[in-house]
């Protein structure tokens, strides 16, 4: 049978963000896959170097719309480490609350997206409706549904009141009962089984070899979670389980994420019922000393790593971030091989990809091996030239 190459993306209805997957097909079966990134690159790391520490915090928060708290906390913890600040316990508790609420909303969002990809739109609508309870709780807690901006260097910006605690606890009861319903549904619904079981296989050895992280790695049977392995904030004192599954397929990823929602509810109840008293922030020193720091954080999608270097000036001299999707992309090409073309969107969605978090770009001359810096002006001219060759003239705009 002749082999056919099918490009999936950069613009494709199955992808929520631009990315390119080149699939080599033999009939309906994918025999080889290659991926290409860089369609959503925004240059945030470089932009952070031209902002002061507070301005950079809001910029880093906007790396991702779903795990905005994860990125912001990771960056802020680095700056706090460099300044030698000790975070008050109440501030740590509020960061845990926001982080876990974020995890629940991210997993419910993912469940909806996965359900949509398999054509089970009823589940998609229900899980997104239930996600609204959490979004409302986040709005009450922080003042915004998406970019919470609850962090500040040295603590958090808002305290949590008694009424808010009661309100969040009530919403958690609702989310818990709905999650239990999804678990019941996932075990009974044959449509879900048919589309997810045995699809996108990633054995344990391959997952470890390809440095997968987060729910993808846990669904391949490896109990790795930064909250347990390298506890930060209050996680060392909290009682929760690391959910794993030996299924190594998309069904395992559904299992891990749905049960993680229940674990997050458990964590939230422990923290909300035993809120430490005291201040919510300490004062940031007027000058950030020279130094460097690396922080790991368990974002909803996996391990988030940030590096910050300072030189004693007003701006950070280097900010480097590794979003979990970059670690998980290596596994996608492997998982696609041997599966059907119709399963490709689901396999890609199963890692919960965030292209904008991950995108990076380097221009390297293949012959000399030298890299070069492209300015915005250069890139704009290049794109105008590219479209001119296709007969579209943007130069007058």
């Amino acid at each position: 049978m002749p082999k056919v190459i099918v490009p999936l993306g950069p613009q494709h209805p199955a992808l929520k963000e631009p990315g390119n997957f080149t699939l080599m097909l033999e009939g309906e079966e994918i025999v080889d896959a290659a991926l290409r990134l860089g369609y959503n690159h925004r240059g945030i790391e470089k932009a952070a170097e031209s902002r002061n520490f507070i301005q950079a915090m809001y910029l880093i928060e906007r790396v991702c719309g779903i795990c905005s708290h994860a990125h912001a906390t990771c960056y802020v913890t680095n700056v706090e480490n460099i300044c030698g600040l000790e975070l008050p316990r109440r501030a740590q508790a509020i960061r845990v609350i926001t982080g876990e609420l974020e995890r629940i909303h991210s997993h419910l969002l993912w469940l909806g997206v996965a359900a949509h990809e398999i054509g089970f739109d009823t589940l998609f609508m229900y899980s997104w409706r239930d996600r609204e309870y959490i979004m409302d709780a986040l709005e009450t807690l922080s003042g915004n549904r998406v970019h919470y901006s609850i962090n500040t260097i040295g603590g958090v910006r808002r305290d949590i009141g008694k009424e808010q605690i009661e309100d969040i606890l009530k919403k958690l009861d609702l989310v818990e009962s709905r999650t239990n319903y999804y678990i019941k549904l996932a075990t009974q619904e044959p449509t879900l089984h048919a589309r997810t079981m045995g699809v996108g296989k990633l054995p344990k050895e391959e997952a470890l070899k390809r440095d997968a992280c987060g729910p993808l790695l846990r669904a391949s049977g490896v109990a790795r979670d930064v909250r347990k392995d390298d506890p930060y904030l209050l996680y060392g004192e909290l009682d929760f389980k690391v959910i794993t599954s030996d299924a190594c397929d998309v069904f395992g990823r559904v299992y891990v994420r749905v049960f993680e929602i229940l674990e997050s509810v458990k964590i939230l109840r422990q923290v909300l019922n035993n809120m430490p008293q005291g201040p919510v922030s300490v004062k940031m020193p007027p000058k950030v000393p020279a130094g460097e720091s690396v922080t790991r954080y368990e974002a909803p999608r996996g391990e988030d790593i940030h590096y910050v270097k300072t030189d004693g000036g007003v701006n950070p001299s280097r900010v480097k971030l590794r979003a979990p999707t970059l670690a998980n992309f290596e596994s996608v090409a492997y998982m696609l091989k041997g599966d059907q073309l119709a399963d490709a969107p689901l396999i890609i969605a199963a890692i919960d990809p965030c292209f904008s978090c991950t995108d990076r770009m380097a221009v390297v001359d293949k012959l000399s091996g030298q890299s070069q810096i492209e300015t915005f002006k250069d890139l704009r001219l290049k794109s105008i030239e590219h479209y001119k060759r296709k007969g579209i003239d943007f130069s007058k705009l």
Partner: protein
Amino acid sequence: MAKPLAALREVFKNLFTAPSTAGYPHAKACPDAGYRARIKYTPQLCVGCQLCVKNCPANAITITLLNPQDKPITGEDGKVTPPVRKFECKIDLTRCIFCAQCVDSCFKKALCSSQEFELASADKAALTDVTKAG
């Protein structure tokens, strides 16, 4: 155990319940009391320290002194009174990301966050909030 159409009961139940979506814009949307939206400026409280301008992540705020030419007034008893400084604040709503960092930075509480979120306008001038003293 596989049970086909397991979600059917839930689907029928939901057919007879009220919609979960809000009726906005026909019904009024009420954001939470702590919601961060349009920033309000009180010129009488401003001292012109420019901390909000310095910390604004979107460079959306400009604060200008309107009367730099005013000189201190010497009274009959020889007492020197500094001039009352008047400020003008321009907030570019197209740049503002509504993080309310300026509210936190202002130690005189001249800036505060409101719940006005319906900011869309066909008139470009309406997208810049200009507040002048006096």
